[in-house]
């Protein structure tokens, strides 16, 4: 990591100064082709940021493997073992390490950093909105907070489950020794890592005036901070594509003997469907950002109406990614909780087939619904009806997911440990999130609700209330296998209630504000909204406190928590058959699977 940073910084600085010099001649100044011209400033910044990322990857040794393969001197077994961190201590977490368990822990820490940073920004946002008048931060800082909070959380949530658990747990769950492409695995993490300083640099470059949706042409008009945003997205798209290919190939090709598709744990299925959905979806976001970058540097006119382009092109490209992307986030969260429920209720997962149909149906339909985000855009009002139809129909496979979970709960005796509590929270939150989604998908209602705080409350209920709760449940569930310790119970329960109760106060208050007519992404608002906004802010502080307690619980338990037995929950999936620390190749002997992992239950009379 040290060498990576040094080489990355060198690459970035060299690129920056070369381009600055290039754009600094007096001749250029007189002809408007220098750094006072925003386009050339953007070129300099964008190239420097990519140089940082590339340099970091070179410095950390990401390309050694492919380079050696290219020159015909592939890595030896010993070198591969070294790359996998064999026998090395904690330093392997700071290096380019191909062991999927190391990558899983790296992702876990990364997710915590991203969610912590996003959460801090959320506290700032809610503090500013506690009273009218925008007394805490001025609009330009507020708008940047909103945009950067959004993108940080979106990135954090996309990887929240498939990152830590998709990497650490999933290969063990399917009985494999590692992932299909261990080097790509490490690459996906370190590529993502390079995006973090790039995104943070937006704060020093004037922030971003757009939300995370970065609509054009506002994004074209924006200051240098926008370059940090678009470079982050392009880097992140690379990381996601690599990770998606890796996870999909692993699950398809490396399942243990006897693990036919109907014996694959539901979390594995959910994660695979999620990343398989991401692979076609994210490239359109990347393309949209590349075009934004071109508009900002070469004055192309993709989104400039005066040059024959259109902001609607951006909106379509963005939402073709944007809608599948929320299901990329949601599906692993629900799948993790579906993994947890049978264990804690000691009943089979109700209707495994319906669960798969639900996930697959959602994923399939999700690519057909994107323009429900554009009902009010005026782009093509004649398509509002068709998109309303496809969007409403997504509630059918989503309903199946509910049926699977409540069917699993039915007539069971739940063991109310932290992972199980998250199942109940998810049911309540996804219920409200899903139903309000149905309201929003109705075109006439959307005439009122679009662009109001109602929308913000809806998507926080689904993305945070369901998906993030799923991630917390997954963390509490798999913590013993990833760290060898039990997560501190009193603290985790305290954090659960502070978060969930605070969450209801925060976002029910926000539904109020939206119904009253408060637009979204506003730094300031009329007196009539003061009541609902204050209520929301109080809820937010409770959520913040809950997450701080959870942070303490994670750190404390990791260092000195109760040592965990091999299978503390009595679960039947393969990851609970390996000890901690998990051996490098996971299993001494390749396991043979003889039944599905939900073989609970006495026979029904």
């Amino acid at each position: 990591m040290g060498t990576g940073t040094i080489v990355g910084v060198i690459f970035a600085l060299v690129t920056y100064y070369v381009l600055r010099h290039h754009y600094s001649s007096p001749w250029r100044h007189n002809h408007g082709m220098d750094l006072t011209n925003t386009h050339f400033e953007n070129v300099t910044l964008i190239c420097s940021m990519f140089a940082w990322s590339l340099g970091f990857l070179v410095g950390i040794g990401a390309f050694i493997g492919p380079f050696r393969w290219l020159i015909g001197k592939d890595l030896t077994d010993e070198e591969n073992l070294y790359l996998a961190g064999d026998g090395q201590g904690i330093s392997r977490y700071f290096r380019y390490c191909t062991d999927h368990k190391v990558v899983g822990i790296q992702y876990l820490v990364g997710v915590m950093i991203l969610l912590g940073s996003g959460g801090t920004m959320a506290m700032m946002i809610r503090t500013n909105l506690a009273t009218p008048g925008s007394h805490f931060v001025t609009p330009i800082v507020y708008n940047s907070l909103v945009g950067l909070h959004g993108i940080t959380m979106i990135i954090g949530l996309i990887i929240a489950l498939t990152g830590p658990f998709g990497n650490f747990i999933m290969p063990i769950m399917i009985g494999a020794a590692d992932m299909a492409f261990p080097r790509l695995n490490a690459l996906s993490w370190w590529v993502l890592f390079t995006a973090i300083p790039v995104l943070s640099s937006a704060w020093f470059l004037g922030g971003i005036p757009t939300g995370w949706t970065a609509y054009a042409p506002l994004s074209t008009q924006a200051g240098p901070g926008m370059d940090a945003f678009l470079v982050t997205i392009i880097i992140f798209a690379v990381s996601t594509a690599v990770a998606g290919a890796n996870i999909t190939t692993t699950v398809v090709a490396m399942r243990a003997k006897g693990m036919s598709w109907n014996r694959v744990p539901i979390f594995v299925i959910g994660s695979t469907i999620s990343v398989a959905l991401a692979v076609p979806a994210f490239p359109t976001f990347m393309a949209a950002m590349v075009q934004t970058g071109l508009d900002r540097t070469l004055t192309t006119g993709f989104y400039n109406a005066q040059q024959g382009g259109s902001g609607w092109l951006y909106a379509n490209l963005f939402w073709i990614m944007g809608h599948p992307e929320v299901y990329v986030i949601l599906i692993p969260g629900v799948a993790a909780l579906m993994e947890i429920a049978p264990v804690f209720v000691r009943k089979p997962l109700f209707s495994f087939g319906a669960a798969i149909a639900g996930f697959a149906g959602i994923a399939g339909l999700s690519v057909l619904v994107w323009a429900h985000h554009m009902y009010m855009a005026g782009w093509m009002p004649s398509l509002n009806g068709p998109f309303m139809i496809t969007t409403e129909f997504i509630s059918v496979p989503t309903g199946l997911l509910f049926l699977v979970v409540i069917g699993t709960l039915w007539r069971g005796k739940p063991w109310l440990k932290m992972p199980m509590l998250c199942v109940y929270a998810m049911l309540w939150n996804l219920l409200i999130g899903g139903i309000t989604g149905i309201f929003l998908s109705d075109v006439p209602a959307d005439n009122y609700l679009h662009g109001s705080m109602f929308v913000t409350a809806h998507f926080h209920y689904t993305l945070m209330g369901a998906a993030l709760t799923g991630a917390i449940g997954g963390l509490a569930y798999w913590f013993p296998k990833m760290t060898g310790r039990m997560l501190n119970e009193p603290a985790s329960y305290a954090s659960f209630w502070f978060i969930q109760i605070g969450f209801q106060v925060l976002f029910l208050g926000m539904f109020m504000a939206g119904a009253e007519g408060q637009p979204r992404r506003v730094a300031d608002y009329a007196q009539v909204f003061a009541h609902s906004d204050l209520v929301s802010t109080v809820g937010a502080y409770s959520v913040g406190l809950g997450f701080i307690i959870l942070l303490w619980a994670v750190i404390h338990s990791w260092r000195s928590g109760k040592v965990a037995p091999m299978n503390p929950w009595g679960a039947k999936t393969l990851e609970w058959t390996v000890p901690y620390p998990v051996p490098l190749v996971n299993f001494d002997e390749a396991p043979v699977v003889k039944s599905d992992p939900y073989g609970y239950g006495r026979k029904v009379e």
Partner: protein
Amino acid sequence: MPATKGKTVVGLVVTVTLSVAVLAGVGVLLHGHSYYNAPTESATVKGTIVGPDGKTYPHAFISDGIFGDPIDSQAHGKCNTLTVQEGTPAAAACDGGHPTWPSYGPYTHLVLPAHAYVTMTLHVYDSGGSLNVPYYASVVGTIGGTANYDGVDKASIDPTAVQHTFTLHGVPTSSQDPLFVNVPLPQSDDADAAGSPLPKGHTVTFSFITGGKGNYVWNCEYPCGDTSYQGFGAVMGSTGFMSGKVTVI
């Protein structure tokens, strides 16, 4: 064991306290960067005047300026505007980080008395061009619907020869009286650059009547964010140059 439990509780309390401290620190940092220290001017009340509705109002006076460079505006630090050279460290202390951006100055936050007849004078020195929206070349919201340009009353100016506008408009309504004033400012013949004497410029005077207490904002509607989309990026998208606040107390 009690000792371990005590340590655990201490650890929890320390973590919570440290986290809250970090959040507070971030908050203080952001608040500090939020341009709340905008140079502020309060209107001076001198006597009374009868308004067009026949009522008598306290007569308040306030003045401000617009300059083609931030150093002359003096809104971003005080410098000797005649001797400081662009690009020098001395200039960096008073250009707000953007030596080429035009700016209102010396004040960007105006404080006006409520229910008063306010007469505002702007001395403006920048070059200009065309507005994006010609409507803002009309004088709106002033007494008589006109402004006085170098001694001549006009209801509008040429929308292709505007240097900036003073557009005072609504914050979220329903809890304060609406207030909307738009005065376009004609371009100067010579541009204003740092380190050189000011061009002749123009003097524009106009009056309007304030309502009750409230918080308002003003921004310029002339797109002077050069090389950015529709000219509304760069300087236009930052606080304290071409946008500010008006507080009616």
